[in-house]
C-alpha cells in the first residue's frame, strides 16, 4: 500500500550566512549553513563532485583544492570561512572537452591512478607545488615528500612518483 509522502522541510534549523566567493573563475553567492564544510559545499551545493572526501579529518588529502593559490584541505574549512576567497577545484584543470593538463596527462601515461578516488586531491596538491616553485626537485625522496599529504590505497605510489617526474620534465620544471 502506498503511504502518504511526508513533506520534506526545505532546510534545517541551522543558522545561515551569505557568502560570496570565486570558484574556478566564476563568482558564486550562496546562503550556507554556518557549520557546512567547504568540501560539502563544493560537492553538494555547487555540484563540483570531482573533489572527494576520504576521511573528513584532514589526513587523506582526497579533498585537496587550491584556496587563494595554496593547496588546502576543504574538509577542514567551513564554507563560511571561504567568503571572499578564490577557490580552484579539479574541474578547472583541463580545458573543457579539450586537452588534459600535462600533470593529468602524465598520470594517465604512467598509470598513476586506479580507482581514481585520491586522484583529484593528488593533482591539486601537485599543481600548487608546481605553480609555487619554478623548479621541482625530482629526486625519488623529494617527490615522495611532495606527495606525503595524500593517501592512495590502490597504486602503491610508485607510478604517481613517476608521473610527477614525467610532468616536471614536460613542463620544464626539472
Amino acid at each position, binding site marked *: 500500500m502506498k*503511504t502518504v*509522502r*511526508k513533506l*520534506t*522541510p526545505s*532546510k*534545517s*534549523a*541551522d543558522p545561515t550566512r551569505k557568502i560570496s566567493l570565486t570558484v574556478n573563475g566564476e563568482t558564486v553567492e550562496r546562503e550556507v*549553513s554556518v*557549520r*557546512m564544510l567547504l568540501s*560539502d559545499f563544493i560537492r553538494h551545493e555547487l*555540484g*563540483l*563532485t*570531482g*573533489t*572527494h572526501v*576520504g*576521511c*573528513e*579529518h584532514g*589526513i*587523506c588529502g*582526497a579533498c585537496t583544492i587550491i584556496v587563494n593559490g595554496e593547496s588546502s584541505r576543504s574538509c577542514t574549512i567551513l564554507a563560511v570561512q571561504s567568503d571572499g576567497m578564490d577557490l580552484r577545484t*579539479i*574541474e578547472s*584543470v*583541463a580545458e573543457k572537452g579539450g586537452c*588534459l593538463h600535462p600533470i*593529468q596527462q602524465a*598520470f*594517465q*601515461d604512467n*598509470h598513476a*591512478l*586506479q*580507482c*581514481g*578516488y*585520491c*586522484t*583529484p586531491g593528488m*593533482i591539486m596538491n601537485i599543481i600548487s607545488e608546481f605553480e609555487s616553485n619554478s623548479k621541482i626537485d625530482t629526486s*625519488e625522496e623529494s617527490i*615522495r615528500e611532495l*606527495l*606525503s599529504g*595524500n*593517501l*592512495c*590505497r*590502490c*597504486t*602503491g*605510489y*610508485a*607510478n604517481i*612518483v613517476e608521473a610527477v617526474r614525467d610532468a616536471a620534465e614536460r613542463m620544464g620544471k626539472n
Partner: protein
Amino acid sequence: MSTRTFGTRVKRNIDPKFLRGEGSYVDDIDLPGVLHATFVRSPFARAKISKIDVQDALSMEGVMAIYTCDNIGKLDIELPLLIPHDCMKDARTQRPLARDDVYYVGQTVAMVVAINRYVAEDAALLVDVDYEPLPVEVDLEKAVLDSAPLVHPTHPKNIAADLVQVSGDPEAAMLKADHVTKIRVEVERSTAASMETRSVAARYDRVSGELTVWDGTQAPLTVRGGLASIFEMDEDKVRVIAPDVGGGFGQKVMFPYPDELLVPMAAMELGYPVKFIEDRRENFIGSNQERKQIHDIELYATKDGEVLALKDFFLHDTGAFIPYGIAIAQVASTSIAGPYQIPNIHVQFQAVYTPTITITPYRGCGRPQACFAIERAMDQLADDLGMSRFEIRRKNLIADDQFPYVREGLMFADGLRVSMDSGQYQTALDMVEEKIGAKDFPKLQEQARSEGKHLGLGLAFYVEGTGLGPYEGGHIKIHPITGKVYVNTGLSGQGQGHDTVFAQIVADQLGVKVEDVILTEGDSGAFDWGVATFASRAAVVSGNAIHKTAIIVRKKTIVAAANMLEVGEDEVELRDGHAWVVNSNRCVSLAAVATATNPLRYAFNEAAKAATQFAPASKHDGPALDDGQSPGLEATDYFSPACATWAYGVHAAIIEVDDVTCSAKVVKYVLIHDCGNMINPTIVEGQVMGGLAQGIAGTLYEKIEIDEDGNITNANFVDFLVPYATEIPPVEIYHLETPSPLNPLGVKGVGEAGCIAVGATIASGLADALEKFNKPKFLSLPITPSMIFDVISDEAQN
C-alpha cells in the same frame, strides 16, 4: 588482423574521466531531494538493550524518519548465511537493526533519515538507548577458554566452526622425520581502508514500481538478488548499479550490510531518494575487517631438509558474526603448505566468535596469514638444520614436471580439491636469488656489521589460488550507427582497469581500437547474470567469458561481411574497424556490417538503406531472418572455470634496522610473480604494486587496536597508519609467464598477489639482520618499533 593488443601496455580508457574529476561515485550521483541516513551504533561490545526512545530525535526539525527493529517490517530478521558449510553449527548472523542484544561496538541500533547528514547526526545523538552491559572477552586465545563470557549463548567456548583437513598420511610421515620445527605465529587484525568508504543510495519510482540502488559494492548482482528476495520483488523491478567505486579490497563484497537493505527500504517507504555515505569512523567500526589468526605450525623433516609432513592448528577470529562462512580460514588452511611438495598435511582451525566487528575477506583473504606461517617456519627449519633459506626452499619446491600438483583431501574455497595447475617455482627462486644479489649479500652484511649496522636479507614464497568459479558472462554488441563495440559483464570494478583489459581482449578479435570498446560492468540493468569481484577472478572468469563471446561475434561479422563483399569467409580480415577483402583495398565498416545484419523497414541513415526491404543485398526469397538467426552482431557467452588456477611468486628484500628509531628500512625489494599470460603488463604491475603497499602497511604500520572492552581505539586515519608515499619503498617487479592450462586466455589472477608475502619477507629480513641477538624473532605482524627495540635492547643490557 590488427596488431594484437593482448600483452601490451595499453593506456587505460577510463583515466581521462577520473582525471577531469568526472568520475561518478555513489555520493556524486545527483538525486534531487535526496535524504541522508545515519546510524545510532552500539557503544558496548556486548549488552542487552532495555529501551530505545526516539521521541526527542523524531521531533527535531529536518528529521524525516527513525527506524528501529520495531518498524522495519520484514527486515527484522537475521541476515542470510552467505556461504554455508557443514562445520558451522547454527551460524550466527547480524540483524539489520539490533533487537534486544548488541554484539560489538558499532553495531547498528537505529537508522535516522533527515534532510542532510548534519541533522541526521544530531538526531542520532538524541536517540536514547538504555543498555545493560555484559562481560566480554576480546582476546582470541582467552575467548576459547571455559571461563570466557560467551558472545552467543548457543556456542560454547565461542567456537563458531571447527574443521580438520588431512592430506596423505601425516601420522606415519611424522614418525619418519629426523627433526621437527615448531613455531607459533600471529597476524593482527587490519582493514581494507579503501579511500572511498562504503556507500549506498536508492530511489523508488512509484509509477513504474522500480527500485534503483547505487551501491559501492563488489557484488552488484548478488545485491540485486538479495534485495529482490528480501523485499519479495521481481528481480526485474530491482536495478542495482555499482558506479565508479573508490577501491574495494574485499570489504565491499559482503552483502548485505544493514545499510544496503535499510536505505532502499526507506526510499520505498518515504517516497524520496535516500543515501547513506559512511564516514571514516563508521568504516572502522561498522564495516568488516580481517586477518587475526594464531597458528601453531610444525614441520617434520629429514636431516637434509626434506619436509615430510606439516601440522598446523590455528585460531581464526571471526568477529561477532560469521555471514561469510569459513571462507578465510579455509583459504588459509588450504594454502598452508605454500609452494612445497609436502605430501602429508594435517591442518585444523577453529573459527572463534569475539564481540568485535564481523570478519570477512580483505585483500589476501587468509593467504597472508598462511604464507607468514609456512615461510617463517621454513626459515626456522633452515636455521635449525644449518641450511640456507634458499637451499631449504629449493629442496622442497614443487618441480615443473609435477604439475598439476594435487593436495588430495584439502578442499579449496570453491568446494574443489586443491590442484595447483602450473608454474616454474625453481626458476622464480633462481631469479629472485640473482636479482636481490644473494651471492654478494654476505659480504655486504659483513661490512655493514663492521660499521655497526644491521642488514638482513628476507625471502618468502607465496602461492595464490585465483579465478574461482562458479562463472561469469559476457555480452557483446557492435553498434550499428557508430561501429563501436559495447561489452557487458556482471561483476564490477573498483579501479582494476577492467574496462581496458576486457577491451583489449575484444579489440583483438574484432579488429577495432581499444578505445572503441566500451565496457559496462556492475549494472544489473545492462547484464544480469554473474557473481561478483573477489578472489582475483575478474580477468580469469569474466575475461575468458568475454573472449569466448568475442569469438562468436567475430565469426558472425566475418560471415556477414563476406556476404556483403561477395567473397569467401576465409578472404575476410577484420582490422581498423572494417572488414577487408585480404590483400585489397575493398572494405566495409563494422557499422555497416552491423546495420546490414539488422533487416530494416525504414532507412534512417545512409548505411541503413542497404538493409531495407528493396535493397539489392537484402533477402528477397524468404524471411529476412532464418529460424534461429538473430539480428545484428551480438552474442552472449559464459565461462565457468574447471577449478581455481594457481598463481605464485617470490619476494626478497634487503632490510636495514635503524638502531636509534628501531625502524625497519627497506633498502631493496625485488619480487618475481607469475600470473600466467598478462593481458596488460602495466595494469598487472599496478595491481602488484598496490598489493605490495598494502602488504607493507600490514607488516609495519597497520593494526586495528581493540581495548579490553571491545572499543577500537584507533578508528581514524590519525591513529591507524595508512602509509603515505614516504613509507612505501621503490620495488623491482619481474614477470614470469606460465600460461594457465585451465582457460583459453591462459591467464591467472593477480589482484591479491602483491600483499601475500610481504609480511614474511620483511620478518625474514629483520630476523636475518638481528640474527646475533639470540631471541625468537618476528613471529607476529605487524612488526612495531618496540618489537625491534625488545630484540636489540636485551643485547644492550647483556
